[in-house]
């Protein structure tokens, strides 16, 4: 894992001291809320429905046990004993007091963490593949590249006041586990003639106008990456709409001028930027890469796993994935217990996950955009022990990628922008489909719920998506089908009029009945929907 040098640490410590002073002045009435709001937002502090909410950055979703323990401590000390892992691989605390915030940020800084650039119209936390460094299908570990971009984008003076917020994802596999093309910039590292370079996609996103990013740079060399991304940003910063916040994201610019014209402008700008010498020497990427050296795997690790316990075998089949190193596995910890709150973990659960990671996963954890946690490097011989420890902490639900593994934003239970509650809908659907045999029979089915059109719950990318809307003060839920955030990326389509809270659960159930009736061998829900179209689903749901 990357670790701060003295410059990183002094930048973060300096920011905490600066914010401490700003909070003091706000509490003393020396500055108004209008003056203070942009300052607190720059430090990830929002005002939500019930209290201040702090969003903490987890760079490319990677944590060590010391950091996870600290997140648990913070939940106990400053919040109400839990945190919420988000679709941007971050964590949010819902009950923070303004007067406590500087001390909290000091605690975070003590483990090389912060909340900088988790809000505002700047480049947000860089996200990545949760299996980075462990996936058999990656061409390289994407995290050093993500770290390089993190360093470049942190406090970038030119990009601190963009037309709108800006999200970048980096992956290095054909299988897209990070919804890469639904980001403002999505980077897929790829290999050409033995050289690693970047396919750069620009102008994707969800929200009110969902779009899939077109490819702009087919192969950007490592030594040109920062100049190229800088050029992408400069064109956006110059021409992005600042007059209309609903049209201010880069996806609107790329869509309006067209991918070809945007690419032409980027190339023109790149020719200029390249001369400025902002790209670090390749030795810098190599230096960063050393922080992400593979752990010392045992060369002769046992590859056999005793599957005689049926519950353990179920968990193995559903939540454990192949690792590139023989004798090791990737463990997915579901934060989606039936009837629970998607993405929430108690402080005690965080401590358990940290402890297990320390003992059994080379001290590493990852947060996934699907609001789960990953132990990336677990020896197969330890899987049963890990499973038992997780089960003890109620963290062993074997439902990864099944219908109850629902992405849900906080919705109207917490979020001041919400139109409707998302979490109760997730809870009701998960409860309706609680039976494991039923869930496994339905197979991979990604259900995603947002409480408003901002789409933090990625409903556009759900095989089944649910969007909460406000119908004259009453919660109503729209249903979309056919979305995907994976390599078969697609935006879901609304299938008809909305439902109330119970009606939406029934509608989802009817859709799964249609799928079971019409599916062909090996087809997922999404495949069947794509093959047969919306009509049989509509007939069953509205007929």
């Amino acid at each position, binding site marked *: 894992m990357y670790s701060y040098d003295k410059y990183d640490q002094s930048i973060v410590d300096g920011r905490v001291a600066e914010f401490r002073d700003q909070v003091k002045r706000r509490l003393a009435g020396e500055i108004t809320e209008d003056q203070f709001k942009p300052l607190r937002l720059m430090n990830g502090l929002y*005002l939500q*429905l019930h*209290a201040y909410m702090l969003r903490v950055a987890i760079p490319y979703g990677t944590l060590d046990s010391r950091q996870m323990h600290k997140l648990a401590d913070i939940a106990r000390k400053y919040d109400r004993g839990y945190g919420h892992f988000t679709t941007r691989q971050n964590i949010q605390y819902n009950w923070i*007091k303004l007067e406590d915030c500087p001390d909290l940020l000091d605690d975070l800084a003590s483990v090389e963490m912060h909340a900088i650039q988790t809000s505002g119209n700047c480049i947000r936390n860089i996200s990545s593949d949760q299996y980075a460094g462990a996936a058999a299908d990656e061409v390289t570990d994407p995290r050093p590249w993500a770290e390089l971009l993190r360093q470049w984008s942190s406090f970038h003076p030119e990009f601190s006041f963009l037309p709108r917020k800006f999200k970048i994802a980096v992956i290095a596999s054909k299988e897209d586990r990070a919804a890469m093309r639904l980001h403002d910039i999505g980077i897929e590292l790829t290999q050409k003639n033995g050289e690693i370079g970047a396919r750069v996609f620009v102008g994707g996103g969800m929200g009110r106008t969902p779009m899939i990013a077109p490819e702009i740079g087919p192969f950007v060399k490592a030594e040109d990456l920062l100049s190229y991304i800088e050029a992408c940003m400069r064109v956006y910063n110059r021409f992005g709409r600042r007059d209309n916040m609903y049209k201010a994201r880069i996806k609107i610019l790329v869509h309006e001028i067209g991918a070809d014209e945007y690419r032409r402008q980027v190339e023109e700008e790149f020719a200029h930027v390249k001369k400025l010498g902002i790209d670090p020497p390749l030795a810098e990427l190599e230096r960063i890469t050393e922080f992400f050296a593979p752990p010392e795997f045992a060369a002769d690790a046992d590859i056999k796993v005793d599957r005689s316990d049926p519950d353990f075998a179920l968990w193995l089949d559903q939540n454990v994935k192949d690792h590139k190193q023989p004798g090791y596995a990737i463990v997915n910890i579901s934060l989606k217990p039936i009837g629970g709150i998607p993405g929430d973990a108690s402080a005690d659960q965080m401590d358990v996950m940290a402890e297990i990671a320390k003992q059994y996963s080379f001290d590493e954890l990852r947060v996934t955009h699907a609001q789960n946690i990953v132990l990336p490097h677990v020896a197969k011989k330890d899987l049963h022990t890990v499973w038992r420890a997780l089960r003890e902490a109620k963290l062993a639900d074997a439902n990864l990628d099944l219908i109850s593994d629902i992405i849900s934003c906080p919705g*109207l*239970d917490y979020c001041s922008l919400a139109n409707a509650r998302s979490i109760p809908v997730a*809870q009701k659907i998960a409860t309706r489909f609680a039976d494991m045999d039923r869930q496994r029979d339905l197979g991979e089915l990604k259900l995603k719920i947002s409480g408003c059109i901002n789409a933090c719950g990625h409903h556009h990318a759900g095989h089944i998506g649910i969007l909460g809307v406000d119908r004259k003060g009453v919660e109503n839920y729209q249903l979309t089908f056919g979305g995907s955030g994976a390599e078969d990326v697609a935006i879901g389509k609304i299938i008809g009029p909305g439902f109330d809270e119970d009606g939406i659960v029934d509608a989802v159930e009817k859709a799964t009945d249609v799928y079971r009736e019409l599916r062909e061998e090996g087809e997922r829900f999404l495949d069947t929907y794509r093959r047969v179209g919306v009509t049989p689903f509509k007939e069953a749901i509205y007929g």
Partner: protein
Amino acid sequence: MKLLTGNDLKSGAVTWWTGSDWSIHVEHAADVGEHGESILQAEEGARRVNAPYIIDAVDTAEGPRPAHIKERVRALGPTVRPDLTLKPADPDAGDWVI
């Protein structure tokens, strides 16, 4: 009826104007009638409460009930965590929101 609400500057807690002070309990909220704007300006000027605003509510036997569900969620707490609401001991408290 009209209520004046905001969030406490220090704690961020939801708070309601009672006619003379602020309370975290919506039952204590006073009908500000036509005076909301002037109270709001005075209170914001005094910076006791963050971003106060006026909402519609209905007078009921149990006290004021905000007209919009969002304000009722604010008034009680998250419907999905009854233990974290202002009425953790009342299992039916969530019905008031919906």
